[in-house]
């Protein structure tokens, strides 16, 4: 017997196979599932901290009323995590638009060993509420930080002219905001945005999916590729590019259209860009499955196309709709890097704390970056985990139970809407939406680099972070294959159906949990075991959220593969390992490849989990977001383009290989 046969025979032994599956399950639980959900245990072990740091209302802050015209006044506050600064007039009315207050003051934190500046002199501060956290410091743990405000305020009127004087004094009040209010606001923002994004995705995505599946036209192939384009771009770059295109960018004015300074609208526009392809793909996939003969039958029975679509096709559509909604919603809920980049661009000062708005993940990023804030991080992550898991269940139930008003048919109007210009208009709108909202904002970054003012780029740091990113992505891809493939086999071919079903449900979990929350949870898990090595933490975080990709892909392919081939091979004398090598592997190798490349590119583009697990990890997206924050747009754009190019080449290679395989 040759050596290879001998190894095969050892590996095929019942005991070896069982032991290997045991290791795989153990790996899955310890590296993926338990760390993902570990944060929930914080509620039990450290409820006191949550209680005291989040729910307990801090003592009413002493409003320190400073009359801003009275020369240089030092504002000292001894207070809690977050300082709430409100500028208001003598009647207590908050100064609101359209007036703008220009503060000639500097807010900084003065600790033992460093001075941290939040606002620089000359920053323009739109009126409203600002959240400025006072940082805990490792050498200076007392809540005794001193922030100093030197005043001198000038004011502009609605038309932008500076006023020499104003009627009555202005006041600056410093007080503390409750963390719970911040968390609650961020959650609200996250969910409202995710909901709006999902609805828009559906409305704009349905005609596009229809066009892709039910119509034939020239250039369909290219449209197919174009839809996936935004997926090839890391979200940090997307956020940067989209904000550059749409937003008013105070740090470099006039870079793009400058249409909006609303963070809310900007983030919605951004989230549509990277979630829309998922919706179109999910809907197209299920539309493809629906037998066109039903539609033909309904049409020959006299129903106009719109009635057919509404009463026949859409009700059969639910499974795809559930997938699309869950994917879009969870992607929007989870995204960090692009959102941080876009928000930073709206903010005139160099702080990464005082965004005009926070989402759940950006709040986690900010707190983590500041250091300390463990109860706040844990609680926010916990809420995100629980709500996203509940969402999965609720969406499934609601969509499956929801009844469309099928009985009511309006033959007249529906016939009218099915004819002439209306369907053409619908198709045209779908195309315009895609070009204007997806494609141009995604690639605007290129025009910026070609037309923008060149600035020096620190390539050394860039390539260092590129190396770090590739190391992480490479390691997690290998681990994904090594453990993901056996897990997929166990899920699809396992003899114990109960175990398979449980694993099947569990494996989807990291897909739905927002990556920032996953990062927090995972960081806590490993810290509880005193493991704090940055490389290990980043790798395990990336492993956790990419793990479902390989498993899902391979499990999908295995479900398609008729098990009788494997059984016949066994009865012809092949040991299990040989069956895997000769029968199973040739059929699933492209799915392994597809899953591996998805995991690789997702890891390359991820920001949220990286920031949440380690304070200062050095991956490319983090590097890009850092550049955007300090206003170095040109180097950031160049870094983005290099990253896009690399991701794009990887995806093209995958397409080429899988296409070749299909032939």
């Amino acid at each position: 017997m040759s050596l290879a046969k001998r190894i095969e025979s050892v590996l095929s032994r019942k005991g070896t196979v069982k032991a290997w599956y045991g290791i795989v399950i153990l790996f899955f639980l310890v590296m993926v599932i338990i760390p993902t959900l570990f944060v929930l245990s914080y509620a039990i072990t450290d409820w006191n901290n949550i209680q005291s740091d989040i729910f307990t209302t801090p003592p009413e802050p002493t409003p320190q009323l400073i009359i801003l015209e009275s020369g240089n006044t030092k504002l000292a506050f001894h207070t809690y995590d977050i300082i709430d600064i409100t500028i208001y007039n003598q009647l207590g009315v908050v100064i609101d638009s359209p007036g703008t207050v220009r503060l000639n003051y500097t807010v900084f934190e003065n600790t033992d060993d460093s001075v941290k500046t939040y606002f620089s002199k000359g920053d323009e501060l739109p009126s409203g509420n600002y959240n400025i956290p006072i940082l805990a410091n490792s050498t200076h743990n007392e809540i005794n930080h001193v922030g100093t405000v030197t005043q001198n305020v000038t004011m502009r009127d609605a038309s932008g002219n500076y006023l020499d004087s104003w009627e009555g004094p202005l006041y600056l009040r410093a007080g503390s905001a409750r963390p719970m209010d911040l968390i609650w606001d961020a959650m609200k923002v996250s969910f409202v945005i995710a909901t709006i994004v999902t609805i828009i995705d559906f409305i704009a995505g349905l005609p596009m999916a229809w066009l892709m599946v039910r119509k034939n036209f020239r250039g369909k192939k290219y449209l197919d590729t174009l839809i996936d384009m935004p997926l090839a771009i890391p979200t940090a770059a997307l956020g940067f590019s989209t904000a550059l295109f749409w937003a008013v960018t105070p740090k470099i004015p006039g870079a793009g259209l400058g249409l909006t300074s609303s963070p809310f609208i900007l983030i919605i526009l951004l989230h549509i860009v990277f979630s829309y392809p998922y919706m179109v793909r999910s809907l197209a996939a299920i539309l493809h499955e629906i037998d066109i003969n039903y539609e033909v039958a309904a049409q020959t029975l006299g129903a106009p196309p719109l009635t057919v679509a509404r009463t026949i096709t859409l009700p059969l559509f639910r499974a795809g709709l559930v997938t699309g909604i869950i994917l879009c919603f969870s992607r929007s809920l989870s995204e960090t890097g692009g959102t941080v980049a876009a928000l930073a661009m709206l903010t005139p000062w160099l702080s990464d704390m005082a965004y005009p708005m926070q989402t759940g993940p950006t709040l986690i990023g900010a707190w983590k970056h500041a250091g300390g804030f463990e109860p706040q991080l844990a609680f926010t992550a916990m809420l995100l985990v629980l709500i996203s898991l509940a969402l999965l269940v609720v969406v499934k139930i609601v969509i499956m139970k929801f009844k469309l008003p099928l009985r009511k048919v309006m033959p007249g109007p529906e016939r009218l809407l099915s004819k002439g210009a209306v369907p053409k208009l619908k198709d045209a709108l779908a195309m315009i939406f895609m070009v204007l909202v997806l494609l141009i904002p995604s690639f605007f970054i290129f025009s910026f680099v070609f037309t923008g003012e060149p600035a020096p780029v620190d390539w050394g740091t860039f390539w260092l972070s590129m190396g770090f990113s590739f190391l992480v992505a490479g390691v997690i891809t290998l681990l994904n294959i090594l453990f993901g493939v056996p897990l997929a086999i166990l899920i699809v071919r396992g003899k114990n159906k109960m175990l398979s079903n449980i694993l099947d449900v569990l494996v989807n979990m990291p897909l739905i949990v927002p990556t920032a929350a996953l990062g927090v949870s995972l960081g806590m898990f490993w810290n509880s075991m005193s493991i704090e090595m940055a490389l290990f933490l980043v790798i395990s975080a990336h492993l956790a959220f990419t793990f479902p990709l390989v498993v899902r892909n391979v499990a999908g392919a295995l479900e398609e593969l008729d098990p009788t081939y494997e059984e016949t091979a066994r009865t012809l004398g092949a040991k299990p390992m040989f069956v895997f090598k000769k029968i199973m592997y040739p059929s699933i190798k492209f799915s392994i490849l597809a899953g591996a490349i998805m995991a690789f590119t997702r890891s390359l583009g991820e920001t949220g989990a990286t920031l949440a697990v380690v304070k200062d990890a050095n991956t490319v997206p983090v590097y890009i977001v850092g550049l955007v924050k300090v206003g170095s747009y040109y180097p950031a754009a160049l870094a983005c383009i290099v990253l896009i190019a690399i991701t794009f080449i990887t995806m093209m290679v995958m397409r080429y290989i899988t296409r070749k395989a299909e032939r």
Partner: protein
Amino acid sequence: MPEIIIRNLKKVFGDLVAIDSLDLTVKDGEYLTILGPTGAGKTTLLRLIAGLEKQTSGSIHIDGKCVDELPPEDRMVTFLSQTYSLFPHMNAWQNTIFGPIARGWDSEKVDIIGREMLEMVHLYDRKDALPHELSGGMQQRNALARALCADARILLLDEPLRALDARLRLDLRHELKKLVKDMGMTAIHVTHDQEEALTISDRIIMLRDGKIIQSGTPQEMFNKPASPFIHHFIGEANFMEGTLTGKTGTGSRLTGESGRTYDIAATNLEVGAKAVAGIKTEFTIMEKEAKDGVNDFPGTVERKLFLGRFTDFEIALDNGHVVHARLPSSIAHKFDEGDKINVHFDPERLLVFPVPEKGLKAELEMM
């Protein structure tokens, strides 16, 4: 001698008893068919023999050796599903030598035996063809060559002809049996097609609810079914229920509820016992002229259904009973819907059974 001996075999899936205390001996070189309705446990029995499922209790011996603890690869049986499970990504040659390669035989020996087997089934010149490039017959020969090459002497065929179209199915079933016999293999062939079972088998076992309810040659199964169910499953039958009221010269007499009497075949049942008599539709005779003899009943043709080679007639007898008769289509033109006719049952063909436990209707249900 690759003889299979199965003793007291039982397989339970959750609450479902798939195979129930089954005993079976398959002789060397025999072509055995397992016939039965969907859900009877046919495929489960094959999978147990192949080692793809583990039995709950009982034992299987192959070639005098207990194989209960052996994995599928060491049992020397080959399991083939629909279209023979030829590996779609391998050509005829790679498929054929799969077994020897899997067992790690040295390559010279593999080349010799592979060539020998492919030549034997006349496929050597197509050795580079992928399965989908081969015709149905070639695929069948390739699969058998592959099984032989793997040193298997027992073939387990799970509805191998099911995926083929009707015409090809007829041709290939004869070739399949011929090849198996020529190669000296033992075959167990699972099917739910009674016609296929009748034409191909040395012996048929009829499986229902995990139990063997009859075993015998095709002729025995057809002519001497052990229960009304088998009588109806292998060729359709008309049934009459009643009480045994006497003996005739060569047979017995059955009286139905409404008082009509039938002369039927001989039986061991006592006079006075409740009984069921059944006759295959082929043997239900239709005559133009009215008669008034034994087992003659007047009736009207209600429906005439053309089935191709045969035509099925639904006849309402004047006594209220509805029966079916089947005639070759070549003579079916003699009768039309609405015709008044005479129906005759040959007493010899009216087989008698005790009344089934759950009643006749439940007995005849296919599930």
